[in-house]
């Protein structure tokens, strides 16, 4: 209880209150505009928060992260376009409800489900914090190295069908992090004798390029879409009552959100997928899913809003970000010399709880704002795409240039912007690059420190937590390879069903060789050579 009071004391400041308000309202607005999203907004605002207190800066960023998904549900339900990527599943049941004349019901249900997800996860984590505070100090260099490695592997294998390229891009991120002066032996790595590379490649420059500038390029080269908005009728509070009628789906979805949020590299999509599948399988009316089912909408919205608070756990407890947004927030900690990790949990527990309480207050603020302001808020979806591109390009300048007033940074950001644009066109993920950069740096430092005390390779995993993480890594890799093998088998079967000949050239040759060696094959060859001889004799 004392801890909660001291956490509240941290929050009782006018600048924190302002940050909460700006973060919540700004996050909803950003989420409601399709094509912007929290990653772009956080990337742009990141350098501006460096001059603020850590709690103020993090509250703004956390506010945007936590409330953007509320806003993202608005265009997903009203115009069938998700405001943020994680609201894609909301369109499945949200838009059909709008199409049959129930947009208010869908919106209020989405807000209520999101609110429950957000509050549930924060309460879980506040209750869970003392346990974390006990577990976190058990993580030494080796454990943190293995946890970072696990996070990176999970990010890679989460990209189904693209794991090879996701892995290559994660390695590219690790390579980017290694550029510059190496801090222990003071040698240059891939600087090509250029001064601007001596200090390394700045994470914010890469983030701004890959997320903000690339999105600006996508929008600028896109066509404007005509938006038809449906008029809102009915009360906005009916969703709260309706949510109470589905306690099981709501609680299970929120739990999935909390659990998946805590695992680095997994996040909203897996949580949503699992809760939606569960809701559909356990529903009395599974045929309604995808056609405007209230349970489907609840499952999708509850799960994704339970993730942001949970995603802060690996960041705060171990200093390991599990996704791009928390990776960006890590830089705010570093700028203020606050090192997230076990020590933060031991020494500044009130700071951690203050962050969670800020998220709790934020959820309340967002719900109140949305219940009363949705009618006016929906107009933001009318902003034309290409004009949004102009706005993002202008704002990206603030983000990159204010960092070090360096034109070289801007050139690099533009280069990464073009790379991000290409990746978006090819539907390839940019997140592994960011996580590779952040986790690569952590892995380098922790492996060096950990290996200093290791005499045999086995010593690396001779502590219980290290052994558990190592076992999880092996299990994750084994299950991934098993899945790849099964997919390959299915592909082969499907190919055999459509083709008569072997699809493998080696096997084709081997089959011909076998055919030649058999008696029947020899007979056929003899007949063919006889015919060929006769043909030659003719000429």
């Amino acid at each position, binding site marked *: 209880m004392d801890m909660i009071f001291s956490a509240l004391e941290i929050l009782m400041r006018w600048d924190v209150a302002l940050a909460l308000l700006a973060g919540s309202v700004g996050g909803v607005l950003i989420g409601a505009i399709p094509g912007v999203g929290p990653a772009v907004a956080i990337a742009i605002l990141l*350098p*501006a928060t460096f001059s603020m207190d850590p709690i103020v800066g993090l509250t703004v960023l956390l506010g945007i992260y936590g409330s953007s998904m509320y806003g993202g549900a608005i265009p997903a339900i009203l115009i069938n376009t998700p405001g943020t990527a994680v609201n894609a599943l909301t369109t499945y049941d949200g838009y059909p409800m709008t199409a049959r004349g129930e947009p208010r019901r869908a919106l209020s249900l989405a807000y209520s489900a999101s609110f429950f997800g957000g509050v549930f996860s924060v309460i879980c984590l506040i209750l869970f914090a003392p346990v974390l505070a006990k577990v976190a100090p058990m993580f030494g260099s080796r454990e943190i190295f293995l946890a970072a490695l696990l996070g990176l592997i999970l990010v890679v294998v989460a990209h*189904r*069908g*693209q794991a*090879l390229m996701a*892995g*290559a891009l*994660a*390695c590219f991120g*690790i*390579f980017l*992090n*290694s550029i510059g002066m190496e801090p*222990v*032996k003071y*040698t*240059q*790595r*891939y*600087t090509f004798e250029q001064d601007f590379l001596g200090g390394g490649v700045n994470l914010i420059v890469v983030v701004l390029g890959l997320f903000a*500038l690339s999105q*600006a*390029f996508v929008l*600028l*080269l896109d066509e404007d879409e005509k938006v038809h908005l449906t008029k809102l009728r009915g009360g906005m509070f009916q969703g709260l009552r309706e949510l109470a009628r589905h306690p099981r789906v709501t609680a299970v979805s929120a739990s999935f959100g909390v659990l998946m949020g805590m695992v680095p590299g997994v996040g909203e999509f897996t949580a949503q997928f699992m809760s939606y599948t569960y809701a559909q399988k356990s529903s009395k009316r599974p045929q309604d899913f995808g056609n405007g089912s209230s349970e489907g909408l609840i499952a999708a919205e509850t799960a994704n809003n339970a993730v942001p608070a949970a995603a802060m756990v690996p960041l705060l407890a171990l200093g390991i970000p599990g996704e791009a947004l928390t990776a960006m927030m890590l830089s705010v900690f570093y700028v203020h010399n606050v090192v997230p990790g076990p020590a933060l949990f031991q020494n500044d527990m009130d700071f951690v709880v203050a962050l969670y309480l800020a998220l709790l207050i934020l959820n309340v603020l967002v719900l109140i704002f949305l219940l009363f302001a949705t009618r006016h808020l929906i107009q933001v979806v009318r902003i034309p795409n*290409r*004009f949004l*591109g*102009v706005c993002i*390009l*202008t*704002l*990206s*300048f*603030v983000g*990159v*240039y*204010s*960092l070090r*007033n360096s*034109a070289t940074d*801007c*050139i690099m950001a*533009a280069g990464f*912007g*073009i790379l991000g644009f*290409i990746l978006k*066109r*090819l*539907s*390839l993920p940019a997140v592994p690059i960011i996580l590779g950069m952040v986790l*690569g740096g952590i892995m*380098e430092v922790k492996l*060096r420190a950990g*290996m200093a005390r290791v005499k045999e390779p086995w010593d690396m995993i001779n502590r219980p937590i290290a052994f558990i993480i190592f076992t999880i890594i092996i299990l994750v890799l084994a299950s991934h390879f098993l899945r790849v093998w099964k997919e390959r088998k299915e*592909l082969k079967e*499907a*190919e055999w069903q*459509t083709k008569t000949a072997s699809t493998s050239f080696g096997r084709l040759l081997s089959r011909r060789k076998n055919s030649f060696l058999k008696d029947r094959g020899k007979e056929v060859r003899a007949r063919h050579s006889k015919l060929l001889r006769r043909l030659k004799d003719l000429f």
Partner: protein
Amino acid sequence: MTTERESRFVGPRRGQLIFALVFLTLSVLLLALIGEQTTWVKKTKLFAQPRFWPAISLGGMVLLGGLHLYRLPWRRVSRYDLKEARHWGQSLEYGLWFMAYVFLVPLVGYLPVTLVFVPLLARRMGYRSRLMLWVSLGFALSVVVLFKGLLSVKIPGALLYEYLPGTLRSFFILYL
């Protein structure tokens, strides 16, 4: 006709082969430079070598990038790939707009350049109405006031501001 392998591929076909080829080529080139661009320090463990992480990362890029290329269901660059590459090139134009903005701000000043840049780019994008002009100007002004005036982000005063009279000069350098 689309083959089974092509239909199961995640993402569009156009441009994939070119990207995979360029990625692998650059990775191989960088890996080939590892002896020249990194140092091997004597009497130091393998894991503490400055060359260790570049080798791991570039090795991973070459291996995984190569496997990705090998697993691609296409072996020839089609005209759609080339069309896509041209589309990538179109983003360069906006990269140049951005760089022009970057180079002009320290010379002319954040406020004047933004007030010209936003409406001009909006015009280039096809928004020629009077309403959009005013919206662009309003947006440009609010960005400068919010970030430089209120949030005090680090954007230095321009060379042109030096020619302004006394108090106006310091006001412009500090807030605009």
